């Protein structure tokens, strides 16, 4: 969901090296099956599919939950005999929540493990780092929940032939946030606090701003932080001075929780509003009662009465003993759609799978009916939920 520009705040070369090394040497312990070394062609008895995700680092929860969703889909497909008469195997790789690491591990998945397709990532920055690699190697990639438009579109402005996503994009999500703020919350003066190093956050706040103003609202303050910051009081004091009636924070859960605490501490009591980057229970663990009552747009609500959702919730609970969040559902859907495309293509050949993915129409997914459009994005409804105690309460569904 974002692009982290390489941080260059350290003037001391030595310390820059320290940080640089932390990208490399860090954590390569994913969970579950990890990649075997030698080059295994998928022509054997198994179909190999790669998954890259943030199993560690600042957005570790995103990677873990998505992985659980994918594992559930994997179990289901293998229980039914796999695909094209072969078992499906997922090879996972950890990006450590870093874009350069994402590029490295995807190269390994594609060149060394010879996977037929790749699932991932959640954060747009990481998906954008990996997309050109998949494109160049003609390996289809399906991102479960990267919402920045540039994931599926190359630098030249053309749609990437081999890159797809099963979620909505920020130019669709932002207006829903704006509409909800104007029509449901009846707010007219919004303040924006965005992560300046994060393309997801910057992109989402731009579309929100445009649509909020189009609907007659005013942006009274727009300030920023950088990923990894823990002190937000200076920004929040500036926001407080502009006396907004709601604060929009298009960021990720761990920072948002911290921001909410510090905002309440400064005596700011207006409602908070965010996007799908909030979708993890860690939000409440960090934000506690400060985040209570806040709203955000996301992909899925486990409270939906829809039969498909309830079946998914039941089987997920049986396996992982907890209620699935939006990212688990997206991981599940991404895997299912990929499996279905391989089945329809009747081949593990990259171009054939990509063609089948592009033809996905009205697939009955857990997060809504999914049709992949010309830009390789999914057209589907958006859910608004509210943080209530330790749960996300369903509020409304918007069909863009």
């Amino acid at each position, binding site marked *: 969901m974002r692009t982290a520009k390489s941080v260059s705040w350290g003037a001391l070369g030595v310390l820059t090296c320290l940080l640089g090394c932390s990208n490399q040497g860090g954590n390569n312990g994913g969970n579950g099956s990890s990649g075997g070394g030698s080059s295994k062609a998928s022509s054997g008895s198994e179909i190999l599919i790669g998954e890259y995700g943030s199993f*560690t680092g600042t957005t570790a929860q995103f990677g873990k939950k998505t992985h659980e969703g994918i594992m559930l889909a994997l179990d289901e497909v293998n229980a039914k005999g796999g695909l094209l008469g072969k078992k499906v195997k997922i090879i996972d790789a950890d990006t450590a929540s870093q874009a350069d690491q994402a590029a490295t591990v995807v190269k390994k998945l594609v060149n060394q493990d010879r996977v037929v397709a790749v699932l991932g990532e959640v954060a747009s920055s990481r998906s954008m780092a990996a997309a050109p690699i998949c494109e160049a190697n003609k390996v289809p990639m399906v991102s479960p929940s990267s919402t920045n438009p540039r994931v599926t579109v190359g630098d030249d402005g053309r749609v990437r032939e081999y890159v797809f996503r099963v979620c909505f994009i920020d130019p669709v999500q932002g207006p829903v946030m704006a509409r909800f703020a104007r029509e449901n919350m009846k707010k007219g003066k919004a303040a924006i606090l965005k992560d300046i190093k994060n393309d997801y956050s910057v992109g989402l706040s731009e579309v929100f701003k445009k649509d909020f103003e189009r609907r007659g609202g005013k942006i009274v303050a727009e300030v920023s932080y950088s990923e990894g910051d823990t002190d937000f009081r200076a920004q929040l004091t500036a926001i407080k001075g502009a006396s907004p009636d709601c604060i929009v924070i298009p960021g990720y859960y761990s920072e948002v929780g911290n921001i909410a605490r510090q905002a309440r501490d400064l005596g700011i009591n207006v409602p908070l509003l965010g996007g799908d980057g909030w979708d993890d229970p860690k939000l409440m663990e960090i934000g506690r009662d400060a985040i209570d009552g806040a709203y955000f747009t996301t992909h899925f609500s486990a409270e939906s009465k829809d039969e498909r959702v309830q079946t998914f919730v039941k089987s997920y609970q049986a396996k992982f003993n907890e209620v699935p969040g939006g990212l688990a559902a997206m991981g599940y859907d991404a895997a299912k759609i990929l499996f279905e495309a391989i089945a329809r293509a009747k081949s593990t050949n990259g171009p054939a799978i990509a063609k089948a993915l592009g033809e996905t129409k009205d697939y009955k997914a857990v997060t809504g009916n999914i049709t992949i459009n010309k830009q390789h994005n999914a057209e589907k409804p958006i859910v608004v939920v509210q943080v209530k105690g330790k749960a996300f309460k369903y509020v409304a569904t918007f069909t863009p």
Partner: protein
Amino acid sequence: MENFLQQLINGVALGSVYALVALGYTMVYGVLRLINFAHGDVYMLGAYYAYYASAKLSVEAHPSLGKVVLVFLISMLGCALTGMIIERLAYRPLRSAPKLTALITAIGVSMLLEFGGQAVFGPDPKPFPDLIPSKALYQSASGALRITNQQVLIIGVSLALMAILRHIVMKTRVGKAMRAISQDGPAASLMGVNTDRVIMFTFALGSALAAVAGILIALYQPTINPLMGVRSGLKAFVAAVLGGIGNIPGAVLGGLLMGLAETAVTTTKFSGFRDAIAFVLLILILLVRPSGLLGSVAREKV
């Protein structure tokens, strides 16, 4: 105006924490002429020791002042021991080696603590327990200015610790020994000062201050992670250099300046330069005063 005052308090609170960490850098530099890069990570450990201590004592479920004080003491003791172990194992064997060797070792220790921390504590940010729940002590009529007990605590505790430190350095025997070593190590040793013991004491003292800084910041910005010491440590180091490394009041002044400058930049549209301001400030001041704000040629180094 009230907004300005609020920002001032935000900046001073942040600066006090930088100052506490900066003191550790400056004291070690004073006695050893070594930049102890692992100091920022000792600050991180302080927060984690407190995290586990308060979980063990279940401070959140059954809060009491005694337990909170105990958490602070456990963490300070833990960090003091950590600091002494680092000195004993990593730096003492290199006492007569070239300065660069010790410096590289310091970086190695720092990385060991960072990645060891990721391995042991897990790399995800952890929510820090509410040891001292935040309450507004003063709120202006318009609500724009709000001073909380945590801010007062941070500033108060930092000032008190600095006063105690000053007393130790200026008025006690061991303080006198520290000053002697900082002026001339071999001569102090010839005069009967047990340099190894005094250096170890300096590490313990600096690390205990870092522990307090770590807990205070974790209370104030309630998430902790194993890499939290990287940025704060670097800024505190800059603060120490800014004030004149080796100079105790200089470290305090540098820390406060750093906190205020950072807060000031963040409120403008240059908020992306928040981390860069530390270095801009450093370069500007070193251009005018190469030995730092309070550093002088015949300075008193501790």
